[in-house]
């Protein structure tokens, strides 16, 4: 099996699955065509994440990431939660296979999007359901793309692997 024990544990017993009644902020990333879709909803109290739930369609890594990122964010101030990165999620999970690192991006992005949505609502802005925002929070330089076939590191928007030539899916 390609996954660490922690990933398997979070996949088999995911924390914080479900929906929230009257959430204060909702973040949705990915789409089913790519094979991953994640929705994170938060309740905020005194600038802290009081409650958090997720719903995810995706592979084992995507589900484990959702569980881990919600666990990490729970109880944190919004400012602290914005500092959770894809790397810290992957690290907490004991690492992810290179070609699944994108899943950790989704987790951090969904969380950050939910927080941004909370701020927007507070300012009286309407939900921007259709606006595709992916890179909101802090993204460390380590976040890279890898070929799913030969694990070669790829430039961000590369449609083909630079080493083996196999087509990749562009980031949506």
């Amino acid at each position, binding site marked *: *099996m390609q*996954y660490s024990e922690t990933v*398997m544990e979070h*996949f*088999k017993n*995911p924390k914080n*699955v*479900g*929906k929230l009644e009257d959430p204060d902020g909702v973040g*949705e990333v990915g789409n*089913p*065509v*790519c*094979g*991953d*879709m*994640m*929705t994170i909803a938060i309740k905020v109290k005194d600038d802290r994440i009081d409650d958090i739930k*997720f*719903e*995810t*369609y*995706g*592979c*084992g890594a*995507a*589900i484990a990431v959702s569980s881990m990122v919600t666990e990490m964010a729970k109880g944190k101030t919004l400012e602290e939660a914005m500092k959770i990165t894809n790397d810290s999620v992957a690290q907490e999970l004991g690492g992810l296979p290179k*070609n*699944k*690192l*994108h*899943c950790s*991006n*989704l987790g951090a992005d969904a969380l950050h999007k939910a927080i941004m949505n909370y701020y927007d609502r507070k300012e009286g802005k309407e939900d921007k359901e259709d606006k595709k925002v992916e890179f909101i929070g802090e993204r460390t330089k380590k976040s890279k*793309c*890898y*070929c*799913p*076939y030969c694990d070669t590191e*790829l430039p961000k928007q590369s449609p083909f692997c630079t080493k083996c030539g196999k*087509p*990749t*899916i562009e*980031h*949506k």
Partner: protein
Amino acid sequence: MDMIYFDNISATQLHSKVKEALIDYIQKDGFGNPLSQHRIGDSASEALEEARTKVAGLINARAPEIVFTSGGTESINHAIKGVAFARAKKGKHIISTNIEHQSVARTLRTLMRMGYQVTLIPVDKYGLVDPAAVEKAITDQTILITVMHANNEIGTVEPIAEIGRIAKARNVIFHSDAVVSCGNIPIDVDELGVDLLSIAANQFYGPSGVGALYIRTKTPIFPFVDGGTQENGRRAGTPNMLGIIGMGKAAELAHVEMPQRMEHVLRLRRYLIKRLGEIDEITINGHPEKCLPGLVSFSVAYIEGESMMIMLDEEGICVSTRSACASGSLRASHVLIAIGTDYALAQGTLVFAFGMDNTIEQIDRAVEVLKKSIAFLRNMSPLYKKK
């Protein structure tokens, strides 16, 4: 926990009699090079030719028409590139389909980079190729038609004999990738009208890393591996004797046991499809009758295949999924997209491929685990709740 193996499309286990044949050959000190002209060489040569005759018998070919290779992929590379190079002066046009295995698709892509033209014929919703469409695509530049016998993802069996008649009438060389079908359903190279046929031993209870290419006498083809005079100059290199001994035995057994094996896996296939009817929103992929008897491909709505596969694996049930993850996005199977499956649904696909040791009881256990897994994953899927 008893292990349940439903991934016979990836590799089959070794038949107990194949194991015996291998051990027997090892214990007889079968190390000789079949090209050596002394007695040790002669005995290896005898064993090699015996295996060749058995493999030929499986597909109704003559022994000299069989070339041993390192497996299905090499056979396919040899067939396509070998003909492309040998006929380059006549033309550079090749016809194939859009559901071929990577070993065909990628070989064609390499040839395209070298200036060859390739026409890919689309398939219908069952994955069937229309022979009339193949005929229509033939030009005076066409040197090769390559169409798989059975599809490795959805099991659909193509109308190879019809395409074979067209190829013969139009004087075009015809190759079929029979890797997943050979040894599992009857194949007669004359009935199919193929000039070249690729096969692999690990699809019919033989070892991995050994296969064969059937080359009809007088077919113009270049060798793929150049060197010595082995395999009648068509494939250089000292042959993989152990693999070939195993393949020969497996071919002999497949020939004899095929009717019972087919009946057995077909019964399992029908039973699984019946039981899958108990689960909501499942689509069975492929042609309902023109298909491999032991393969079931199905897509489960609202969830993703890898998660299901891992959950089954956790319970000791080995199946395969058809989705590769590209930079975190999952690439849907090109075969499922070719038959018109929706992208999201294609992501939720599992393949169960039965073998001769599988039982109805194993299916019952797998279906129970599958039901639980589907409920678990749908419960956390935003798509399921949104419907």
